[in-house]
């Protein structure tokens, strides 16, 4: 399936150091039929550049891997929640960690949803597709333009 990336849709920031996992995320986005651009950041510093150095871009949400090289995803989440322009950005974690402490720390820091990366590829892909569908079609995102239809401007 060829899908045109539409520039009128808010991009999604994907923070993950694994190219294999980013590739899976891209595949799930295509299969879910979403046209939002996926912006890939490899670590917290890279994500910081995208979020704080380029303030004009409004992201639909951030898909965040907590276990990153250098600073972890939790530190990045805390910075996002403190940042005046980014504090309402939905942050969805996709991590390999099943540690209850990581999970609780993520929610305590104001994260929106915690998902565990699955070893089973088929299940992991289905999980990601439902994440994209849910957050882009069912959720009214912060700052979404709902003026004409009452629905957010996402497919």
């Amino acid at each position: 399936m060829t899908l045109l990336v539409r520039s009128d849709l808010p991009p999604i920031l994907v923070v993950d150091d694994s190219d294999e996992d980013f590739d899976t995320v891209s595949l799930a986005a295509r299969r879910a039929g979403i046209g939002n651009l996926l912006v890939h950041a490899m670590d917290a510093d890279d994500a910081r550049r995208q979020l704080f150095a380029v303030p004009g871009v409004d992201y639909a949400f951030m898909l965040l891997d907590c276990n990153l090289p250098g600073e972890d995803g939790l530190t990045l989440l805390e910075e996002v929640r403190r940042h005046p322009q980014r504090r309402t950005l939905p942050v969805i974690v996709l991590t390999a960690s099943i540690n209850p402490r990581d999970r609780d720390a993520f929610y305590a820091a104001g994260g929106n949803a915690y998902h565990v990366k699955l070893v089973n590829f088929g299940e992991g892909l289905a999980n990601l597709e439902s994440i994209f569908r849910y957050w882009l079609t069912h959720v009214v995102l912060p700052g979404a333009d709902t003026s004409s239809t009452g629905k957010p401007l996402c497919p």
Partner: protein
Amino acid sequence: MWQEEVRGRAEPWKPVEIEAAKNLRLLMLDVVVARAEQLAALNTDLVRSNDELDAFAYVAGHDLKEPLRGIHKYAHFLLEETKAGRPLDAQGRERIDAMLRLTVRMDSLLDALLHFSRVGRLSLARQPIALGDVVAEATDMLGASLLGRDIDVQIPRPLPTISCDRIRVREVFANLISNAAKYNDKPQRHIEIGYLDPVDGADAVSTFYVRDNGIGIDTKHSERVFMMFKRLHTRDAYGGGSGAGLAIVKKLVEQHNGHSWFTSELGVGTTFYFTLIGAGMTQPGA
């Protein structure tokens, strides 16, 4: 123990006896308090080691699952292609290559993990060791991986002989020298190995260092770099690695009752320090 028996009415206690009884009471209190403190310290240690074990199991779990996820994914794709009756194409061969690479990565993570856990359990074989020889061996061991790079290793003054575990201290040096060479983008890589003068006599702390002119480490990572499987760079940057080296260094140094830390300036270089406690230093030639 002091004992006295009286009939009828006892003589009133002399001031010196009251003083002695008071002292005895204080001594007993000291013993009780000291025991309670020991017990509290043991409990704290136990809680900490349980917490460490817990955190360690989770870390090991998710880091080992990463290559496993990749392998599962590529096998899934290959199976889909086969089911659809499509012959193996270039992309299919790339996927098989990736699977092979990931199994090797998983193997090296498991080796590092087993080594790390073994390092914590074995007891030290301390004896007087000439550290100059140990560093020479460590550099020889690294020879193959350091070859082809322009590296010069300087030892500004001969290293002392100290009481330590030869194999472990050699591993500490090997890890630090290897890092100094790897995380370095200068055309001429300099590594300096030395020690600081002990502050006082026999039970002085011996502080050793390995200094490089490499890329440097942001000091905000001062604790993170010593964590198991923690890398500051993406998986294959700077020659790749499992992220176990400094965690192992920290553990080996702790076994010598010492500690490890670094000072660094980004783009200029890093100096890793470690101490070996109770190591009774002998100067070469002294």
